[in-house]
């Protein structure tokens, strides 16, 4: 269980030496002390190239090229073991990366199963009804590479939700969705977050997901 995420003077290595320039200054996150408590949701607004995907990668623990400290409940995440990371990624921290990270050669269903079989979290019926709700149920057995980016984005969202989580990191979740799908995805994510009592941390460069966030931070 993660109760809160703390960022302490975090700065991507790539921005070193630019501490007083844009976009480091002004920024609500880089080189600041930030605390996100569960179940508060937080929107991170940013321009392109300000490091929002890097921030998601740092929090999800797949990159370490930053200075400062990121902690979960007071423990520096750079000290976590491999086993701790595996447990966090299947039980506490869900992540929708901007690049989606789907397996193009696998079908929609297989891409979702690959996560769900690991966590044993959702029933096949739930998956099917959710695909239906997102209007991609007809594509269930189609290899993902034949889907449009918007469809792929919805598949990746379903997959990200196939696990219990305390924090849901979603990197530009609706960048390729129209308003109607944006609303459907938003209500789905809200429901799941509420069920889990979880925080949503979403990023956006413009197309925002339809959720009322507790706070909005400017990167």
């Amino acid at each position, binding site marked *: 269980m993660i109760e809160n995420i703390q960022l302490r003077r975090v700065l991507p290595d790539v921005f070193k030496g630019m501490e007083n320039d844009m976009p480091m200054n002004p920024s609500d996150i880089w080189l600041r002390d930030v605390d996100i408590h569960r179940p508060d949701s937080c929107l991170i607004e940013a321009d392109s190239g300000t490091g929002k995907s890097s921030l998601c990668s*740092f929090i*999800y*623990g*797949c*990159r*370490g*090229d*930053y200075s400062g400290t990121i902690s979960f409940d007071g423990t520096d*995440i*750079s000290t*976590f073991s*491999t*086993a701790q*990371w*595996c*447990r966090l*990624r*299947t039980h506490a921290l869900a*992540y929708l*990366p901007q690049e989606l*990270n789907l*397996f193009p*050669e*696998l079908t929609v269903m*297989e891409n979702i*199963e*690959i*996560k769900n*079989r*690991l*966590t044993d979290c959702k029933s096949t019926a739930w998956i099917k009804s959710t695909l239906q709700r997102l209007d991609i149920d007809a594509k269930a057995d189609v290899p993902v590479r034949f889907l449009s980016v918007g469809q792929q984005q919805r598949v990746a969202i379903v997959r990200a939700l196939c*696990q219990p989580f305390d924090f849901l990191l979603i990197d530009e979740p609706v960048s390729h969705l129209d308003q109607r799908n944006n609303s459907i995805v938003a209500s789905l994510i809200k429901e799941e977050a509420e069920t889990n009592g979880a925080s949503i941390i979403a990023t956006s460069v413009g197309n925002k997901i339809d959720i009322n966030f507790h706070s909005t931070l400017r990167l």
Partner: protein
Amino acid sequence: MKQSIVWRLLRHNISAKQLAGYAIANLLGLTIVVAALQFYSDIKGIWNDDDSFISRDYIIISRKVSGIGSIFRKDATNFSETDIAEIERQPWARRVGKFTASGFNVSANVEMGGCGLSTALFLEAIPSEFFDIIPDGWSYSPADSSATVPIILSKDYLTLYNFGFASARGLPQISEGMISMLPLRLSISGNGRQRYFKARIAGFSSRLNTIAVPEEFMTWANANFSEKNSTDPSRLIIEVSSPGDPAITDFLDNNGYESAGDKADNGRASYFLAVSTAVVITIGAVISLLAFFILLLSIDLLLQKNRRVINLLLMQGYTPGAVGRYYTGIVLTINSIVTVGAIALMLCVRLLWKGQLSSIGIEGASPLIAISAAVIIMAAITFGNIRSITGTINRIFPRPGRR
């Protein structure tokens, strides 16, 4: 279903050709190693003819019998005190013991299935300290008139009887165990006396080319039945530091001595066998080692090619163990096949020499050592491969891994 999806992702880029190349190369290398090992352990039985009494560190020498001198001069083949002192001075000689010959007439009588056999014999004695293992009941007390005289017989005599005499005369062949149970009767005469003794075969020796009795018996019997004063010995037993030492052969040749059974030559032949086996094993080991690196590189290349898929699976929360399991499975399967294949090939190849060896009466060693060697070598190779797989996947694992 989970397994099959993950496996479908991870089996991409597996090169059947590379794996087959590895399997064949390692099969060849491992077969050479284990077959050479097996050949060595089978054939070394020729030289390591076990002798429970006298070890290989002893040689038994006598003078060469040649020319007319030996007919006229009875002591021409004996060793004088000077000769013995000279041998004792040699750096390779640790101890020298004399064979004491009997100075009386001996004949032995055995009752076998109603058929009595009687033969004239000779007896010799060597000091007891030259036995590695003192045979059971190897003592004689002259005070006890009913005491049994223990005898150690050369194995060659039994062989001569079984395959020469018995088969030619239609007599039953007898085993070592049977002959040890036969009651023998020794008749000893000389110095105007005659006496009968009970005797039994206490053991057989392949190194002691004589009929040996305890020194106590010989001393007592010579004192009572011999008409001669004690003479110089005609055979010596020498404890040497290294039986294969060429200096021994040179010394024996220069002095006109010869060693019984050519054990020194055997020492050199077995040394040569050991060297050539080591060369063959090294060649096999080098092939196996190269094959090991082929697999190591092949698997590493496979992991590098599948790096993205592995990384994405680990991002989903799969453990490095769960991902690596598929690759370690491949390694375990191939290596098990190679191990079984190499053992099977070795056993087949072994038939080539086994028939010939058994025709000269050598049973061959148990293949357990070679099989264990194959298993140990392959376990080491598998361990190395699995470590490499685990290491590579752990490096791919997405973690902050900072600085």
